[in-house]
């Protein structure tokens, strides 16, 4: 039996280990780190209940030291913030001990009403963002999932010049082992570039569509309980898409796609939020090219689980592959609940991080 002194020593040692070194999966220490995209706090920022600094402070308070951000949402005078603001940004990074990890970039392809950007303009758009990413200290720039490879290749010299890695998002419904990823890998192989890679988004691994999205569509009158149940059951029973669509229409379903997909699309793996058919293990095939991860979530339940995405299947694959980057929590449920419920993004992200701490064996 140990003495009280010995017991306290063990306790202290244990506490120290938990504070500074996440224990690993089995014998391997996971090198993954926790972060957050400030996009998660979009509603609080939008309503001005949180400032950018408040978002960073909140991230630090939950140990999410890796920061991702949409400069188009949160940087004043985008794309040319004042030096004074940029200095403040770096002061916040020092004050809260956070690190700028990923710059969420957008191609303004349809800037003009009557035409798409020319190739030169498209590359110019990317260079604009590389410059600002460098000013703000970001090392990874997240690009839109389907950014044309032609543009990416032309932008590579600039990525090198500004010392950033450009990583396109792999988001549902893109197949991890499909043509797009294959083409990207071929380009990386051919150019030998170290400045192009991927940001997998966990929407890729959805097991069941977010119920909050279904409920919102019901409240909006584009879906009924009956149709929703029918679609979910028919998908589970293997009824083909067209047949399900026919039958749902007979039951009164008339949803119009406004660009984000219908509930039918979601259930049948064609949408951005719905059932996916990717296997988390497929990430192993592209592991050296994963520069960052969007730890997507829509609803953290009272049991501290994500309703749609099986994190307990996904995180071990990243650990197995030796991923040593950040898991950036990306809370996106607010758009489905804000019409009827009060949003508390901070609470949702906190729940997300407790789940991740458990899965990372930090607690």
């Amino acid at each position, binding site marked *: 039996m140990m003495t009280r002194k010995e017991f306290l020593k063990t306790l202290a040692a244990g506490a120290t280990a938990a504070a500074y070194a996440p224990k690993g999966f089995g014998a391997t220490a996971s090198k993954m780190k926790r972060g957050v995209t400030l*996009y998660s706090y*979009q*509603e609080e*920022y*939008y*309503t*001005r209940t949180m400032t950018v600094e408040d978002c960073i402070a909140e991230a630090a308070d939950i140990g999410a030291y890796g920061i991702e951000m*949409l400069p*188009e*949402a*949160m940087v*004043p005078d*985008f794309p040319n913030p004042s030096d004074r603001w940029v200095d403040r940004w770096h002061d916040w990074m020092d004050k809260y001990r956070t690190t700028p990890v990923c710059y969420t970039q*957008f*191609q*303004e*392809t*349809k*800037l*003009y*009403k*009557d035409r798409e950007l020319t190739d030169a303009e498209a590359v110019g758009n990317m260079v604009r963002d590389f410059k600002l990413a460098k000013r703000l200290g970001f090392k990874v720039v997240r690009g*839109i999932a*389907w950014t044309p490879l032609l543009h990416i290749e032309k932008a590579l010299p600039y990525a090198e010049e500004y010392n950033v890695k450009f990583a396109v998002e792999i988001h549902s419904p893109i197949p991890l082992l499909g043509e797009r990823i294959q083409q990207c890998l071929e380009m990386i192989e051919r150019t030998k570039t170290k400045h192009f890679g991927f940001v997998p988004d966990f929407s890729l691994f959805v097991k069941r569509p977010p119920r909050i999205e279904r409920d919102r569509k019901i409240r909006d009158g584009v879906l009924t309980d009956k149709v929703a149940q029918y679609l979910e059951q028919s998908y589970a029973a293997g009824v083909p898409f067209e047949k399900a669509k026919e039958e749902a229409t007979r039951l009164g379903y008339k949803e119009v796609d*406004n*660009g*984000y997909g219908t509930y039918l699309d979601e259930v049948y793996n064609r949408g951005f939020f719905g059932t996916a058919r990717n296997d988390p293990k497929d990430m192993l095939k592209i592991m050296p090219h994963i520069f960052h991860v969007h730890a997507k979530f829509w609803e953290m339940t009272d049991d501290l689980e994500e309703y749609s995405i099986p994190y307990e299947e996904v995180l071990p694959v990243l650990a197995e592959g030796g991923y040593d980057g950040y898991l950036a929590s990306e809370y996106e449920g*607010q*758009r489905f609940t*804000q*019409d009827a419920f009060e949003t508390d993004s901070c609470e949702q992200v906190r729940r997300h991080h407790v789940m991740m701490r458990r899965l990372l064996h930090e607690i």
Partner: protein
Amino acid sequence: MFEKYMICTRGFKNVYEDDRPAGFQLKVRITYYRGIPVSCVESFDVTVDGETFSPDNVTFSIGGKSFPLTQVGKAVDVRWPFGDPATLIIKKPGGLKPGIHDIQVVETLRISYMPNSRSVATAKKKVTLVI
């Protein structure tokens, strides 16, 4: 998204020309998760107390710059920041009477990185006008 925040109470008032009400002003916010170039605004369909206003009679204004709504497609160098109210000025001789008004706005944006995508958001709000 953000439909419930689209129509602002603050800023709702008549606009005067030569001391007579020539129209009214309504502030609106973006129903999207980032700021956009003003050229990506497609339309605002404003209905007040059942009266719908033609885009020809609407001006869109942000950051001190104004454009006829029908011309916003040209404003590629002006940004509408995320969360910042933009001002719609609607021509209506006589303006609106003081009291509670039923406002409906349909905000259509061109989501420039999504293929074939328009964001169409509808908001309804009762707002009181005083002067």
